[in-house]
């Protein structure tokens, strides 16, 4: 599956949302004109804050919510008018939705039985699926007798046991504690890599999205803000929302004073800085610039950074591998700098005046959210 990370080898659009809109009340759009292509074998995550429309998109794909406008295609077939049970889409729910009156094995048998599969094939598949999630010995247990992580694995196995065309996961790890959640992220990722099944995953947890996905669609306000691989999303956010939402971010607001090819100069409080012109309206327009905390250098050697500003240390938080430092820079009191706990790093005290600097390409001039 590794080749899919780049999204270059396999380019047939397995799932397509075409101009999809969704409204529940006829007054506001929850999903605004969604166009999204998901490739075969891809692990695509819909990431966004609650109310951003990501779960609604998943429900439309699963068939539990009708699209108000537009068309959804699965494997080139329009599925708007296909009932959920005929879509052949496996789904993992946030609360697992394991049937409590059935044993684990019966839960897995259910999709096979309703398909009228023959008995020996049923048994074989259930065994394989349980072995895949390392729960081979638990077939006779009731879901209530399993731990949260085990239940989650059963839910994943159940969604895969009937070889669905597509697997949807709706915040499946939301109910687990942090350690288990991280472990399950790897397990789901490995299962995906092993089976090559197409997965659409919904979460509001960005680290989960970054860990597992081939590509991430960042949702906000019913619109896909950016659809990109995790590294691109973090390193090259295309708008202020994505920059804020993914990872930690310093925002500097200013006005574009000149544009020079791919770079521009922005006037900010206490001077001006050069930045990559990513998403600006032109000279004179307002922009908010994104600068990752780990890309800021404290007291850089002379001539190393084209952008150099005075800073005053406000607060130091010791975090083991790095020192999280809050500073006042250019009128921004929430300016965060991460200083790695490496040999010979600078020792700061609150109230100290220092210089901070950054490279032009690390500072991205984006749209200015009003």
């Amino acid at each position, binding site marked *: 599956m590794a080749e899919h990370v780049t999204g270059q080898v396999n380019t047939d659009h397995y799932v397509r949302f075409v101009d999809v809109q969704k409204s529940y009340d006829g007054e506001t759009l929850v999903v605004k004109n969604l166009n999204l292509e998901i490739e075969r074998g891809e692990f695509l995550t819909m990431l966004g804050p609650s109310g951003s429309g990501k779960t609604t998109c998943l429900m439309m794909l699963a068939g539990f919510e009708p699209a108000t406008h537009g068309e959804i295609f699965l494997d080139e077939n329009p599925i708007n008018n296909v009932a959920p*049970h005929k879509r052949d889409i496996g789904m993992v729910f946030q*609360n697992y939705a394991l*049937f409590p009156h059935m044993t684990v094995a019966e839960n897995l048998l*259910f*999709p096979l039985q*309703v398909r009228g599969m023959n008995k020996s094939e049923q048994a074989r598949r259930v065994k394989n699926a349980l072995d895949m999630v390392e729960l081979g010995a638990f077939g006779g247990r009731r879901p209530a007798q399993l731990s949260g992580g085990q239940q989650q694995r059963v839910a994943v196995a159940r969604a895969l046991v009937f070889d669905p065309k597509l697997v949807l996961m709706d915040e499946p790890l939301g109910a687990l504690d942090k350690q288990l959640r991280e472990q399950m992220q790897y397990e789901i990722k490995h299962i995906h890599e092993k089976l090559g099944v197409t997965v659409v995953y919904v979460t509001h947890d960005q680290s989960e999205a970054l860990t597992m996905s081939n590509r991430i669609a960042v949702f906000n306000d019913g619109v896909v803000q950016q659809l990109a691989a995790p590294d691109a999303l973090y390193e090259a956010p295309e708008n202020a929302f994505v920059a804020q939402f993914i990872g930690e971010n310093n925002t500097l607001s200013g006005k574009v004073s000149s544009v020079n090819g791919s770079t521009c100069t922005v006037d900010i409080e206490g001077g001006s800085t050069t930045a990559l012109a990513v998403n600006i309206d032109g000279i004179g327009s307002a922009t908010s610039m994104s600068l990752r905390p780990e890309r800021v250098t404290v007291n850089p050697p002379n001539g190393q950074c084209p952008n150099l500003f005075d800073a005053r240390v406000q607060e130091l938080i010791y975090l083991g591998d790095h020192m999280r430092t809050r500073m006042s820079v250019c009128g921004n009191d929430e300016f965060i700098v991460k200083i790695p706990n490496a040999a010979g790093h600078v020792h700061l005290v609150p109230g100290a005046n220092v210089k901070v600097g950054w490279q032009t390409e690390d500072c991205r001039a984006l749209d200015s959210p009003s």
Partner: protein
Amino acid sequence: MAQAEMTGDMMRTADGVPLKLALERALFRSRLRAVMLVAPLFFFLLITFVLPIFDMLFRSVENNIVADILPRTVVAIEAWDETSGELPGEAVFEAIVKDMADGKRDKTLGRVARRLNFEKSGMASLFRKSGRKAPKITEAPYREQLLKIDKRWSDIDLWKLIKREKGAFTKSHFLAAADMQYTPDGSIEMRPENRQIYTNLFGRTLWLSGLITVLCLLLAYPVAYLLATLPLRTSNLLMVLVLLPFWTSLLVRTTSWIALLQTQGVINDLLVGIGLIDDDSRLQMIHNQFGTVVAMTHILLPFMILPLYSVMKTIPPSYMRAARSLGATPFTAFVKIYMPNTVAGVGAGSILVFILAIGYYITPALVGGRTGSLISNFIASFISGSTQNWGLAAALGVMLLAIVLVLYFLYDKIVGINNMKLG
């Protein structure tokens, strides 16, 4: 625990007090508070529920009337051999004449007359007649004079009856409640077919209660499902409609069924009005089983809806969605996934409605007529009606209680009482 087992020693706190004792002390106050909080209800239930039940159990076998009111007879008849085929001796007749005279004087004779009349008809009139004249008999021969008053005193069965019922306890109420009776020679047999009342009545009570339970379930299930799945605003409105009958007097609801169902009532008028039936063939829908079933189903419906609702409310909608996504049609998903998860509510609602129905009194009394009345109506008539027979009423009540307990036991075996959810 493992440590205690290993060393075979008691666990102790830091300053050497046995751990169990320390725990006991620490919990004492909270336990005391719990007991105090429960105490009022406990005493209330003890006085108003537990003691009456024991009183009822006792009354169903209690039999002190004969011994209390005919004390001399009871002693004298001891010597009589009822298998001899002869009347008791002069001493017994003397005793009963004196007892009757005393009973007449103390105005207690009527009680024993009524008590014995339950066992053998005609006893009441015999005792009343003889009681009037007994005080005049003051000297021997008692037997001759008493037989002159009424020839029925020569009936050996009568004396056998008195000897049989002289003890402090009797089976006769239970026998009567089970449609059985003593033969004259003291063995037990079923009553003649045409005089069997209570077994049929128990059968009818069980059958109608079962029918009402099933009807309630069929009507309540969709309503509860809607209540649990509709949006909050709509379901609240529906809930008010379900609860509204609860806030209306039981009598009002029952009598409104009379207004609806009677021969000159709303429904018949309507059917005649639209020409569906003739005026002279109006439907008899009340004062029969139909009336009982309709009115009781309506009245007991909330007791089915509420437990069902409370269980359905806890079933996440994702179960049905999961079933659909796994390939089940809506019908299969409902039958295979949703319905098994409502078993607890079905069980709770059914047992609640059934047990309420089996002992229901006021509605069948008002709308049941002859064919639609239940066992409780008979129990009530024996307590407050003209035929005061508390012993038989108690025996019927005990049998009703026993039936309920047996059903409860069966329910526990089959469904499991722990699976029951009432709210």
